[in-house]
Structures are given as C-alpha cells and as structure tokens.
C-alpha cells in the first residue's frame, strides 16, 4: 500500500510536469503572436540594452530556436531578466512578491473552506427555518456580486467605521501586519465561500437523511458526535473535491483584490507585463502560477485519499 502511494505521487508529479510544459509552450507561442515588440515601448531603450537582450535571448533568431533556448533556461529554473525593468531578474520578482500573493490566497482559501463548511452545515441543520433563509440569501449575494464591487464596498465600510470610532480599527489598504490581510482575504474568499456553502448544504442534507445516521442514532450516539463523526466527515467530501479548482479561482481572482487594496502581490506584475508585452515576466508569472496550481490540485487529490477510504490512490 505504501509503495502504491509513492508510485501514485510520482506519477501525478510527472503528469504535473507535462502539464506545466504544455502551459509554457502554449503561453510562449500565444505571446509571440501578439502584435508588437517588447523593446519598442515609450521609454527610449539604449542600444546597449537592446543589443544585450537580443544577444541573450536570441530575439533575432527563428521563433523555434527562441523556444528551445527558453525551455533550456526554464529547466535550469532561470526565468530570465525583465524586458522593461532594467536588470531585474524575473526570479527576484517572483521571490519578492509571490509570498504576499500566496499568503493572501491561502488565507482566503482557509476563510472560504472554514466558512463554507460551517455555514453550509448550519443551513442544513436549520433547513427551511430563519437562519437557513438568511444565510442562503447572503450566499446568492456572495456568488453574484463581483469581487471588485465587494472590495470597494468593504473599503467604504471600513472608512466609515474607522471614522465613526475615531481611530483605525482595520487598515483600509496596504500590506504589512495581520490586520492588513484580514479584509482582502475575506473579500477574495467570499464568492468561493458562498459557493462552498451551497455545496455543503446540499451534501449535508443528503447525509442527514441517510441510513447510517439513523444507525448512529439507534446506537444512542450523542448528537454532537453524530454531527462531527458521522455527518460532517461524510458531507465534507464533495467540498474537498472542488477545493482544488477553487484554489485556482481564488489565486487568479487575487489580481483584482490586490489592485484595489494596494497589495504588493504578484498579480500587478502579471497584468502590467501583459500590457507592456514583457515576454520574460509574462512567461515567468504564468508558468510559475501554472506550476503552483497543478501542485495544489495534486495536494488536494492526495488529501482526498486520506479523507475518503474508498478512494484508492493508484
């Protein structure tokens, strides 16, 4: 069994590498098909830099050669130098700014998962009663209102609140302490939390009426144990299944929230790079994000194997 598990992990990681290679290839050729030239932007580019860059990346060479060179560098973990920010390594950009985005994203996923499971279970237990109606109304709001609206509204709310109290309870924007993280993480995780709440509610409703819950009652198991051991554990399975793709939704949605809350995350570089056709930064951020997401999906799948004994990882 242990051996099967190790083999499964290896297989999944190999598949992941192939996926990342595919992402890199697709991005590379799509990017080069966009009209324009990264070296022809508003700023005057000194001939020295142009020559330096062209020599290093072979921009004068055929596209396929460029692709091979790029893959070679990528295999060594070198994303190259930014085209627009002089002498700045893409690796440095990622190293500096990714931890910010990752912290925000992970916090948002935790908010979303914990909130979704809690609210979903609550609405199921209070089915067709007041708490159920109130929470489900908020869920529909959470799913349908886009995150930039929620972000702006939450900032407005914070400003009003801080003014009323007369001092700063929570910072409205910026990055630094834990207090800076709370509001943007909540905003970022909100729609996923709403989605997971709905999923958890329906899955919990199915479990509440199931035969094995009736069996647990017939054994005289106390309600708190029935809830945690028999209902929650089984109802959570579908939630874990969608957690992988939802992590992708949250991290890609992070760009907007980072912008509104002035958070120095990776998202800003990603968007600006596309606008300025900064080849290396586009490639670096895309491939890195892609690899991160592939990795997270594998982690969630492994997690699922631990939660649901029926899933045999082979």
């Amino acid at each position, binding site marked *: 069994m242990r051996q099967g598990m190790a083999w499964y992990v290896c297989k999944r990681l190999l598949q992941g590498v192939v996926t990342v290679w595919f992402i890199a290839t697709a991005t590379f050729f799509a990017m080069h098909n966009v009209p324009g030239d990264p070296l022809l932007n508003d700023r005057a580019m000194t001939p020295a830099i142009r020559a330096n860059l062209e020599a290093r990346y072979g921009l004068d060479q055929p596209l396929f050669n460029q692709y091979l060179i790029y893959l070679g560098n990528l295999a060594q973990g070198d994303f190259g130098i930014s085209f627009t920010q002089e002498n700045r390594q893409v690796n440095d950009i990622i190293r500096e700014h990714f931890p910010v985005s990752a912290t925000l994203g992970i916090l948002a996923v935790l908010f979303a998962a914990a909130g979704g499971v809690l609210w979903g279970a609550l609405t199921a237990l209070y089915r067709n009663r007041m708490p159920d109606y109130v929470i489900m109304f908020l869920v529909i709001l959470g799913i349908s209102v886009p995150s930039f609206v929620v972000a702006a509204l939450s900032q407005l709310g914070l400003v009003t609140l801080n003014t009323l109290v007369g001092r700063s309870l929570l910072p409205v924007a910026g990055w630094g302490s834990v207090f800076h993280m709370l509001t943007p993480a909540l905003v970022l995780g909100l729609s996923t939390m709403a989605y997971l709440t709905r999923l958890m509610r329906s899955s919990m409703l199915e479990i509440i009426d199931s*035969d094995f819950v009736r*069996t647990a*009652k*017939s*054994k*005289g198991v106390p309600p708190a144990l029935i809830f945690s051991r028999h209902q929650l554990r089984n109802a959570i399975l579908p939630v874990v299944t969608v957690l992988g793709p939802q992590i992708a939704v949250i991290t890609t949605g992070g760009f907007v929230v980072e912008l509104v809350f002035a958070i120095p995350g990776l998202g800003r570089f990603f968007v600006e790079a596309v606008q300025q056709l900064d080849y290396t930064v586009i490639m670096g951020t895309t491939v890195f994000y892609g690899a991160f997401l592939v990795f997270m999906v594998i982690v969630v799948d492994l997690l699922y194997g631990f939660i649901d004994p029926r899933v045999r990882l082979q």
Partner: protein
Amino acid sequence: MTAAPLLQVEDLHVEFATHGGTVRAVRGVDFSVDSNRTLAIVGESGCGKSVSVQSIMGLIPVPPGRIGPGSALLRGQEILGNNVVNGRDVRGSEIGMIFQDPMTSLNPTMTIGAQIAEPLQVHRGYGAGRAREEAIRLLESCRIPEARKRAGQYPFEFSGGMLQRAMIAMAISCKPALLIADEPTTALDVTIQSQILDLMRDLQRETGMAIILITHDLGVVARMADEVLVMYAGEVVEKGGVDDVFYRSAHPYTLGLKAAMPSNRDDSAQVLTPIDGSPPDLFAPPGGCGYFARCPYAMQACEDNHPESFDLHADHFARCWLHHEDCDVEATDVHRTTASE
C-alpha cells in the same frame, strides 16, 4: 406470567404532517415482548411495521412526525419520545437495532471496528483500545473470519452478508435486552438470509435477549417467531402464537398473506394468489374495516363499523366482524371459535 413484560407497547399512534395532509401511519397498536421470545411483525409495505418500531427508537423525525398518544414501557419505564432512562440512552445499550440495507446503514468513512466499538465507548465508557478488542471479539462471535483484519476495514470492503453480521455485532455490543431487526434479510440473497437468521437465533439462545423481527416473509416468521403480529393499514388485525396464526388464521388478511406465499411442496397444487388492490389511503383512513375493499368475505357491516377485536383463545385475537356471534357468512378457511367448538 406475573412480572411485567420487557417491552410493553400500548395504543401507539404515529402521524406524519405532509403537504397533502396528515398521514395516520400507526393507529393504536398494542404488543409486548419478553426475554428469550421472538415477536414477528408482518404485513405488506406501508402498513406501519417499521414506523411503529422506529417511533419507539426515537428515529422518526419530529416534525413532520407526531408520536402519541400511546406508551412504550421498557421494564416499566416510559421510553416513547424519551429514550434517556436514568441518565442513559436506552438505544444501543438496552435496545439494539439492525436495518434492512446493510450497504447503506454503515458509515462509509469509519472502519467497521470503530463503528462496533462506538456504542461501547458511548454507553460503557470503554477506552479506545479496550473497545477495539471487544469489537474484534464481537465480530468473531458473529462468525466473521479474520476478525482482527476485518475490524480495520471499511464497509466498502465487505459483502452484504458480512455487513449485516457486522451490524448485528454492533447492535448486540452492549448486550441489549431487546434486538429489533427491521427486515434484516430482505436485501440479502437466500443462502445468506438463512445464515443471518441462524446467527440471530443462536445469539438469542446465548444471551436470552428478546427479538422483534419485522418482515413480510412468512417463511422467516415460521422459522423464527414465537408470537406473530399481523399489521394492516396501521393497525393490528391478528395476533397470536405462531401456530395459531399459521394454522388457525382468524383474519382474511392473514389468509391472503398465506395464499400469496410461494410454496415448494410437491403435493401443493396451489397457485400464487396475490391480494387484489392496495392498502387504503392513510390520509383518510376508512371508518370501518381497513381491509373492507379487498376482503373476499366483506359484509355490509364492515364498511362503516370499525371491527372490534375478538379473542379466540388465550393470546390469540383477530380484529374482524366474522367472529361476531351474529355473523352468518360462510367462510370455511377462516378459523372461528364457534366453528371449532
């Protein structure tokens, strides 16, 4: 019999409030069962067998269910609507229960051993290790080979018959005085059925527990039961010792059930005869006899007059107007005290 019976149920009523109105699922059921005895409750689907025992076990969701009036006394203590007696839940400790479909009746994400150990931990306060050892011993006593290995497995790794054995092991883990088996063999194939029934019987001999067996299989009744309760449309229509009910059937519905049972006797030329029609609508139960519309001996009086119960012998009664002294209908196959005496 001077002492009070182990479980005495009197005048049990259960209703369900639905969008279409109130379903009166159980309408005044009385029965009792004693240690070392097996009471079979028979009847077709929807006649209130399962609802009766589930209401006693507190397994009917309230609402939409509504339980009462009525009483269920376990050793003289009321347990209807209140399963906690002397600070302890009688479910799992005093009364064990097994269900129809073992495939869905066990928690798919818990090991079999942990599920059997659970009542021991809840009711007896056993530690995890001790409860686990006891669970393995219980699995062995329910004739599951390689019990130690099996205890660490999950329900999806078991076959249906093995799961039902595990269910039994779980139900008897705290040595209950009463085992309720709600159609325990319906979902199993015939050879496995037989093994499960044997197992229940042997466990009863060892522990002296009482069994309430719900089934619609008269073959199972003949093999297992000491007493039989025939239910129809939420009421008891005939009750008596197993021989009385089988050989001296006193209600046309019991006869209908017997005629609908397949037989493999060589000399039997009988054709399987189903009971025509279907049970009455329990949204609006009939004022007279519930079996009126399907009964071959139905009389004018049966339509509007609810039948009284007539005693035929000690502990054998039927709820049918045919036993009224003024009845002159010819019904040769219905056993009547007047005819036999």
